């Protein structure tokens, strides 16, 4: 028997099998399937749950359930909740840097830059929550005795195929603009680099983001994407992580209930985002009322 006090071989690490993040909880895939996430050099990192059609549907149910509360919060409150995500993410900075570095095969410096930018992105979007109405809304000067104004509202449930290459910064770059205005989200992570998405789910679970606002499915976008694209209770789909052929078929399927579609656009996730992504997931509502005594 080994003497536990003697200098022996390196400690045997605890190998992880991660789960999905749905409705604020961490269920296994209903299918029971897993797949191995590898680092950029092909080494084993962790087992990931491989999401199925049923998982996608459960996630949509969770997102729909969370929508009234989240969209009904004051923008000030949503801004604070997003800011808190930035704080929590910053607290796990080293962990994210290591995971981004391993998964994307980039240098320590590049990984750190991506993580810092991801933190900054949450801060940037947090500040938008209570400014979107003024920037995208309007008072309308109509030719008659009416008070007429237009305001943005969240589109509803947004399915997101996260970027495949930029595993954290790209993910934040599609997630934050979707939820800041009150949408709730089902996101399919990068297939080959899923670990930062799971760690981000752990961040969200321990932050103030209500359960169901963000649901994270690890797995194959080509397998899960079609079920989300054709789901009649999903209102919009962001195809950032789909290749052109997949994006075309999913856009076709999305027409069944006229989902708002964001096509993949070769976005540079490190650049300042602009408001297009947020605006694409908003509806403008116009209200008229007569003026009189």
């Amino acid at each position, binding site marked *: 028997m080994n003497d536990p006090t003697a200098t022996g071989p390196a400690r045997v690490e605890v190998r992880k099998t991660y789960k999905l993040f749905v409705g604020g909880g961490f269920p296994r895939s209903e299918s029971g399937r897993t797949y191995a996430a590898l680092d950029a050099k092909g080494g084993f990192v962790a087992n990931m749950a491989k999401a199925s059609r049923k998982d996608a549907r459960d996630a949509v149910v969770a997102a729909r359930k969370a929508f009234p509360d989240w969209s009904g919060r004051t923008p000030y409150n949503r801004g604070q909740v997003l800011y808190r995500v930035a704080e929590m993410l910053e607290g796990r900075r080293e962990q994210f840097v290591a995971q981004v570095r391993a998964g994307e095969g980039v240098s320590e410096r590049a990984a750190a830059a991506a993580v810092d930018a991801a933190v900054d992105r949450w801060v940037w979007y947090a500040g938008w929550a209570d400014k979107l109405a003024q920037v995208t809304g309007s008072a309308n000067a109509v*030719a008659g005795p009416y008070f007429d104004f*237009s305001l943005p509202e969240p589109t509803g449930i947004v399915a997101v195929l996260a970027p495949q290459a930029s595993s954290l910064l790209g993910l934040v770059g599609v997630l934050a603009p979707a939820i800041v205005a009150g949408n709730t989200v089902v996101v399919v992570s990068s297939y080959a680099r899923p670990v930062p998405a799971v760690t981000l789910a752990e961040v969200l679970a321990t932050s103030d983001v209500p359960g169901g606002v963000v649901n994270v499915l690890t797995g194959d976008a080509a397998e899960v994407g079609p079920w989300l694209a054709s789901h009649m209770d999903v209102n919009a789909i962001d195809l950032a992580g789909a290749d052109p052929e997949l994006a075309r078929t999913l*856009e076709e399927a999305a*027409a*069944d209930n006229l989902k708002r579609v964001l096509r993949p656009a070769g976005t540079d996730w490190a650049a300042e985002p602009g408001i297009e992504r947020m605006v694409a997931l908003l509806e403008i*509502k116009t209200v008229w009322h007569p003026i009189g005594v």
Partner: protein
Amino acid sequence: MSGSGFDYAPAPESRSVVDIKSAYGLFIGGEFVEPHDGRHFKTVSPASEEVLAEVAEAGPADVDAAVAAARRAYERVWSLMPGRDRAKYLYRIARILAERSREFAVLETLDNGKPIKESRDVDVPMASAWFFYYAGWADKLSYAGQGPDPRPLGVAAQVIPWNFPLMMLAWKIAPALAAGNTVVLKPAETTPLSALLFADVCQQAELPAGVVNIVTGAGATGQELVGHPDVDKVAFTGSTEVGKSIARAVAGSTKRVTLELGGKAANIVFDDAPIDQAVEGIVNGIFFNQGHVCCAGSRLLVQESANDELLTSLKRRMATLRLGDPLDKNTDVGAINSAEQLARIHELSDVGDAEGAQRWSPACELPEHGYWFPPTIFTGVTQAHRIAREEIFGPVLSVLTFRTPAEAVEKANNTPYGLSAGVWTEKGSRILWMADALRAGVVWANTFNRFDPASPFGGYQESGYGREGGRHGLAAYLR
């Protein structure tokens, strides 16, 4: 509608103010040309079934020529022209539409079947106002919220419906041109004439050739146009079914799309609402333009305690609606636009009977010729009934009841559509609460069916995407 002792004498507007040619070509590259394969179709007056003119049916070669003309005009003239000059052309068009408004009103009423007082007081003035409004944007695009140097998209393919032919043309063409795009527009098969007269306006305004091209035809022509590979932008107003097929057709392309589709608007009346005003709003909401309005208030939700009083007033008011010759200035309800649409209204109304709702129409004589349907309400309607779920696009109102504001919202939002809604109540805080809770792109509170070029219009969910009107409508034509 008759026998009251106060019968109106006929007061028809004269048809002689407008010259209708016996045949029209396609308007491509600034001039009228014959269609490549020589095919024509007839357009009839729905009030009399009289043939008004023969109109060219554009085939693939014609669509191709129109898109090529638009591309040439975009690259060589329109996208290079300073905004202030584009503005002047649009102002010219606005002015000419106003100057020729009687001509347009009579033509629209003949081809569409809508009452002259609607084409004269709503459609034509609104079309002119739309050009006037967007003319002013043409040299101010950097203030439109699209960044410091917004660019046009290129060639826009625009397909419009038959319910407001000229007004829809204006909603489409004015923002497109202001932003620096050129257009190929296809008017509806049953109402092509006002668009062809608009081509004449473009010539009169000396708009550079190819900036506006008009191709007439049916669904196949529209499909050809939106599917054309050299089109950068597709704008469509029409049925949700066709909207979905367009969304599928552009999948995987770089074409930008806006869709303004069907609706099944709830018009919600609380028991504290001023009943007479609400009744006017309900009548305007569903019988305006024979109910051929995508945002028509086709589901009336009445608070239970006000139901009897409201229905009594509504029926009394409906009995005063005058149905008949659309050219008569006293007519309130005109002709149904086509035999096909009339058949659809009959079909869904019969389903309403079969499913157990109670039908009521005022005593009403329908003209012998043409396509007519009396103003109709169904009471005892439930949410499961097809007449409460499907767009009828005719003068048919389904009446449901509710008890609490929460129930009203629940029922109003229980639809895949989301274009418009109405709320009638004297309580301000309730109006704002309802306006917030209703999932619809336009909410009219204590009014209904108001439109303005400065006011964004468009739907949630399956009522389409994008907005028309205001700064938001401009964004649909810029990048």
